[in-house]
């Protein structure tokens, strides 16, 4: 450790450049995963806010919730078996606010208020993003196709679906406004399942885990997949970077390694020295990039969906360190190979 530090101090430029590149790549990774997570919140926080559980759609709906319809009778049968089941429907639509402006929303209506907002008939509860746009409690909203209007009763934080703010309405209003008498989706939380340990199976219904259900939202999987791909590429690149940089640094040091081996220094100690250097560089670079990405989170413009949790940050940092370790170790194989005799015969370094 002492030797590792001494060498870095003596070769500041070389290690600063490596640290700088690791810093930039990790910062980019944090920013992109912040965006990925922010977008996924923006896209589907309505679903993401639900606890772990199982979603059910009609098998014939072919994984598309808007084609799914669970009749009253089906709902009753499910509820008999699992009383804690919530039934809900989502309908993309729009309304005209009191200043005659058209707004796109996702209407949500649920039979159960454990996981969803309870709304009285004639009222609507909106995602808080609409409050920021100037809609206030008490405002009337309406739609050309409706023969009634709804009163804004309140706002909730972070309830979005398909990049649109959620508008919670009473099931009776939902049925009247959208001319339906069925619900689309059944949901039961794992913690509320009765009599069985596994998710219950219902005839004619297809079950989805939270993640599977999220991926039935067409834009969701496409967005997340491309962003996660970028994150994975960045992680791989950082690993290769460590490998290449340490390879180059090691090549320059082969002579020294040979001499150290000749006088009896253990190969393991030379590896430890390299690992210590890799560790110091990654930790310093990561502390910097974590601070900056968190600052970015605070300063990012409101319209930019950016959400970086400490959990994600910690996990990515760990992956960085592990990948750096693997990269450095791979490049360190040459340390193992170097023969003391070569260094001695090569003459002055």
């Amino acid at each position: 450790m002492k030797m590792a530090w001494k060498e870095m101090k003596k070769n500041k430029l070389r290690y600063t450049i490596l640290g700088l590149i690791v810093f930039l790549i990790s910062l980019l990774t944090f920013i992109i995963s912040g965006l990925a997570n922010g977008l996924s919140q923006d896209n589907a926080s309505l679903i993401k806010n639900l606890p772990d559980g199982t979603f059910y759609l009609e098998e014939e709906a072919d994984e598309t919730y808007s084609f799914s319809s669970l009749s009253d009778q089906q709902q009753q049968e499910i509820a008999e078996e699992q009383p804690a089941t919530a039934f809900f429907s989502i309908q993309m639509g729009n309304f005209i606010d009191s200043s005659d402006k058209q707004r796109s929303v996702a209407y949500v209506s649920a039979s159960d208020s454990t996981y969803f907002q309870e709304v009285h008939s004639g009222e609507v509860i909106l995602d808080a993003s609409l409050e920021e746009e100037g809609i206030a409690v008490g405002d009337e909203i309406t739609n050309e196709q409706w023969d009634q209007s709804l009163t804004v009763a309140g706002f909730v934080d972070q309830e979005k679906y398909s990049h649109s703010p959620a508008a919670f309405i009473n099931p009776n209003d939902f049925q009247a406004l959208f001319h339906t008498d069925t619900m689309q989706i059944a949901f039961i939380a794992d913690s509320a399942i009765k009599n069985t340990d596994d998710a219950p199976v219902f005839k004619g219904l297809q079950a989805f885990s939270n993640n599977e259900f999220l991926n039935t939202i067409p834009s969701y999987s496409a967005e997340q997949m491309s962003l996660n791909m970028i994150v994975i590429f960045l992680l791989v690149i950082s690993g290769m970077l460590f490998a290449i940089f340490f390879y180059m640094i090691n090549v320059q040091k082969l002579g020294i390694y040979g001499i150290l081996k000749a006088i009896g220094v253990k190969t393991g100690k030379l590896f430890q020295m390299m690992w210590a250097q890799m560790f110091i560089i990654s930790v310093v670079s990561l502390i910097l990039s974590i601070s900056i990405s968190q600052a970015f989170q605070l300063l990012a413009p409101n319209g930019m969906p950016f959400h970086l949790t400490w959990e994600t940050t910690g996990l990515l940092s760990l992956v960085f360190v592990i990948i750096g370790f693997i990269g450095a170790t791979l490049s360190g194989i040459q340390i193992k190979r170097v023969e003391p005799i070569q260094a001695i015969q090569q003459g002055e370094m």
Partner: protein
Amino acid sequence: MSLFTMDNVRKTFAHGEVKEEILKGINISLSQGKITALTGASGSGKSTLLTIAAGLQTASDGQISFEQQELTSMRSEELRQIRAKDFGFIFQFAHLVPFLTVQEQLDLMLDTAESPLSKQTQKKEIKQVLELVGMWKRKDAYPASLSGGEKQRVAVARAIIHSPKVLFADEPTASLDSKRSQEVMKLIQNLSKERHITVLMVTHDMDMLDFVDEVIEMRDGKIVDKKNT
């Protein structure tokens, strides 16, 4: 009694198809506390012999024993331990570690040799040895700022700081002018006397032979003459 013996040691290098025997049956025995010089024409195999003796490369055939241990049949980890604890090396070039100060070079050597001395005693020892080689004033200097002679004196200090039993030196004075050469040789001689270190060294320089106890002359991979001085 001999501390170190080589018995019918051979070394063959393969240049593609062609095999060339560089050492053709070497027998040497080094007695404790004595300085032995290896001389001979360039290419006669002196360096090869020295590095094989020091465990830095393997012999193709023959036996090498040190304190009743058979070096030729040792695993590389055992050999490394012997190199670290019982051997010291001075090469033609100082080969100091560029990012360590003079003092730290010796520190590293004591560490590598797993010195049983306390840190405090080690510090004293380092001071003593550096004073002996006249480098105590430069204890915090990095190798890049030292002259060739100074570097070589630090290399000598590093080679003996852990009180090795055998010191191997390959033309330790070749990069020095004659005044410095004399100084370094005197140093090696004194250390050998004081610490009972057995020395095997390669030299071209006939002036250096004044400092040694025995001279072994090589020609063409064979020993052609041994004489006491």
